[in-house]
């Protein structure tokens, strides 16, 4: 019944009231300014459940669920919001920008997978970094993950607003772009409230939406690909690949990197994944590979169909015009519906990740414990969901698509860089508890390149985004100095 740590076997008699022995992890030390210590529960992980002293935590998310979280979070931004903006900035080379993003995401997804199999706990990147590098980087990343997800969600919601307005236009109700932000706010508030009060299992719905989106996209890409290669449809004038030079390829890559933020969100549910040693790497790497291929193909098809100038002018919902160009009104309708679903699923998935990110830091006494309270009425973490939803609505009100996206990427990229650093540090220090079942190929080159690439991409962002991102990180350091300076988390499993 209760697994024996030494052998990994299950013994027959549960020792009543006596917990399983635990490996040599350090005991967390110190308290925050309120006198709370991190709640670090000794845990034995099995593929099916986590077993603590007094209870068990069932692992219920399978590979499909993990892929759905990753793809569902990512696909809304990369395919339905960015192609127009990216093509306007980089020309047909926008496809290369998405390719660069995919490579960087992959360089991070592999180290993150190794860390996640060694520490399959909720909290994702924050957890790895706080355990490998200590409390200060932990606070910076943990709170930045919260803010980063808030910015990302606001960005998805504004994207949703654009698609909602376009849907109304398709239905013959022309309301103009002035309603983008109000609709986004309305939907953002609904998502938050539904997540607090809804106890229906939306995971199956999310899986269904992702499957539907993938089918729409594959159909679209097959048709568009044939068209782009000149097999069917009229010939399109070939366009210069990088009309604005190479620099915009990188700045655009920095902008569209928001399309890849979802893979690390899989690690925020690592504590709930079945057989994490197998499913976490497959879900993280798999979702990056799948969406990376889809993004590059979509942008290629879109720029071939309409030309990058027209795409750039069409902005956030340029894909609707591509759909119309390729398949007429039904094509436009399919893309509009796809865009609505995709941005909704991105926003919802990332609100859930935000709540988990807040829980992870609050559990470690880096935020007040009441931030992770849950209510028995609905069983939902209403405080954390509120801490996600409130700031999201404020940011949505700004309506600044590009800045929201870039700040989100900035905050995530710092985390991604530090994930790679954590991997190198742990491999070198090699503590006894560090026993990943998945190992990164090409160590140490791969994580080092991953770290350098993550940090380097930040440098290509616009000044306002850099300013906002840096200010937020400095604020998190301030919070550490005030609230959690005495908490020691390094190696505290």
């Amino acid at each position, binding site marked *: *019944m209760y697994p024996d740590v030494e052998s990994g076997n*299950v013994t027959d*008699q*549960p020792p*009543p009231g006596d917990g399983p022995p635990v490996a040599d992890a350090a005991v967390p030390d110190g308290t925050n300014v309120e006198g709370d210590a991190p*709640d670090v*529960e000794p845990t034995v992980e099995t593929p*099916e*459940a*986590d077993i*603590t002293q*007094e*209870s*068990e*935590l*069932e692992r*219920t*998310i399978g590979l499909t669920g993990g892929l759905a979280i990753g793809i569902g979070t990512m696909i809304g931004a990369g395919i339905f919001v960015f192609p127009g903006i990216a093509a306007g900035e980089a020309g047909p080379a926008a496809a290369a920008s998405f390719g660069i993003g995919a490579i960087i995401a992959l360089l991070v997804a592999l180290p993150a997978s190794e860390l996640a199999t060694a520490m399959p706990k*909720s909290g994702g990147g924050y957890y790895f970094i706080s355990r490998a590098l200590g409390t200060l980087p932990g606070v910076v990343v943990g709170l930045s993950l919260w803010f980063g997800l808030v910015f990302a969600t606001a960005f998805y919601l504004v994207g949703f607003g654009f698609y909602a307005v376009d849907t109304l236009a398709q239905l013959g109700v022309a309301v103009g772009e002035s309603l983008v932000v109000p609709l986004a706010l309305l939907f953002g508030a609904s998502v938050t409230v539904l*997540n*607090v009060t*809804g*106890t*229906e*299992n*939306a*995971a199956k719905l999310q899986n269904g939406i992702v499957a539907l989106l993938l089918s729409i996209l594959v159909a679209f890409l097959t048709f568009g690909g044939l068209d782009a290669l000149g097999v069917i449809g009229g010939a399109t004038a070939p366009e210069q690949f990088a009309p604005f030079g190479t620099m915009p390829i990188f700045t655009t890559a920095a902008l569209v990197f928001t399309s890849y933020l979802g893979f690390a969100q899989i690690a925020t*549910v690592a*504590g*709930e994944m079945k057989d994490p040693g197998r499913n976490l790497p497959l879900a993280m790497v798999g979702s990056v590979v799948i969406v990376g291929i889809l993004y590059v193909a979509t942008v290629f098809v879109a720029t071939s169909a309409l030309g990058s100038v027209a795409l750039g002018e069409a902005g956030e919902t340029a894909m609707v015009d591509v759909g119309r160009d390729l398949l007429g009104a039904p094509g436009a309708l399919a893309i509009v519906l796809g865009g609505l679903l995709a941005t909704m699923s991105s926003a919802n998935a990332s609100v*859930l990740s935000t*709540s*988990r990110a807040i*829980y992870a830091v609050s*559990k470690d006494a880096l935020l007040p414990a009441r931030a*992770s*309270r*849950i209510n*028995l009425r*609905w*069983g*939902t*973490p209403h405080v954390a*969901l509120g801490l996600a939803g409130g700031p999201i609505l404020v940011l949505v009100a700004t309506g600044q698509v590009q800045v929201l996206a870039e700040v989100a990427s900035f905050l995530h990229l710092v985390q991604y860089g530090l994930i790679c650093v954590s991997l190198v540090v742990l491999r070198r220090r090699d503590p006894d508890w560090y026993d990943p079942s998945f190992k990164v190929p090409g160590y140490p080159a791969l994580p080092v390149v991953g770290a350098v690439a993550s940090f380097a991409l930040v440098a290509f962002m616009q000044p306002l985004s850099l300013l906002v991102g840096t200010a937020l990180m400095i604020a998190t350091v301030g919070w550490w100095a005030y609230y959690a300076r005495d908490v020691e988390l390094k190696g505290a499993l």
Partner: protein
Amino acid sequence: MHVVVPVAVLENESVSMGLVNLLSTADVTVLGYHVLPEQTPPDQARAQYEDRANAALDDVMAEFEAAGGDAYHRLVFTHDRRQTIDRVADDAKADAYAIAGTTAGVERLLVPLTGDVDVDRILAFVTELVGERDIAVTLFGIAGEAKADAARRGLDAAATTLADAGIDVAMRFSKTDDPLDALTDARKVDLLADAATDHDAIVMGERAPSLQSFLFGDESRRLAAESVAPVLVVRREPEPDLEPVDTEPADADRSDDAGGSGDAEPSDGATESGDADESR
């Protein structure tokens, strides 16, 4: 013999004294569980509710221990009740799990043998559960016209097995007017719930997951809800690679017991006593 008794411990679910006493011949794992919506990591609920839940579980445990059997308890926070019960039952090598219902004392068990269930396992379980106590069993069959004879012969054989083990057996058989052999689950649940009214608890076999159970929920859970009585669900044969060891010795034990207690009253009225055709 081992039975898992799941209790939704934070939702004020409790185990009726009747069920506690019925299970006094079995080892019991009390499975306290709490189902969380997907928004909530199970760990987050643990931090907040673990103490409360364990205190409630200790009370349930005390009742089982007072009744005589060996009892263990486990507390699980989960998103998926079904998966948790299966895992814990596998871990404990349990023969059955319970669905708590209300009953005062158990004098008569309803044992439906319909559909694709493992009759041998069910009968073995019932024999061991009843033990030497004075608990009567009604075997219940449902079949359409075409298969009525075969189903009735199966029921007769089962009744003989139980009677040989010294259990007071009755039989009930519903032949349906419906020409289709394959009844819908909903109809079956109705018939069984009707039959359950003059019984105190139900022992039934676990069935393979099907489209119907996916759409409408487990037959056993629906029956428990309809009949309000406790239901013991005898689990299917475990996958061969999972637990190859445990089932054989259990069977051997059972036949020993049956030999010891079964000679006393090979109730000759067994097959006639309750043979009521309830054609509908």
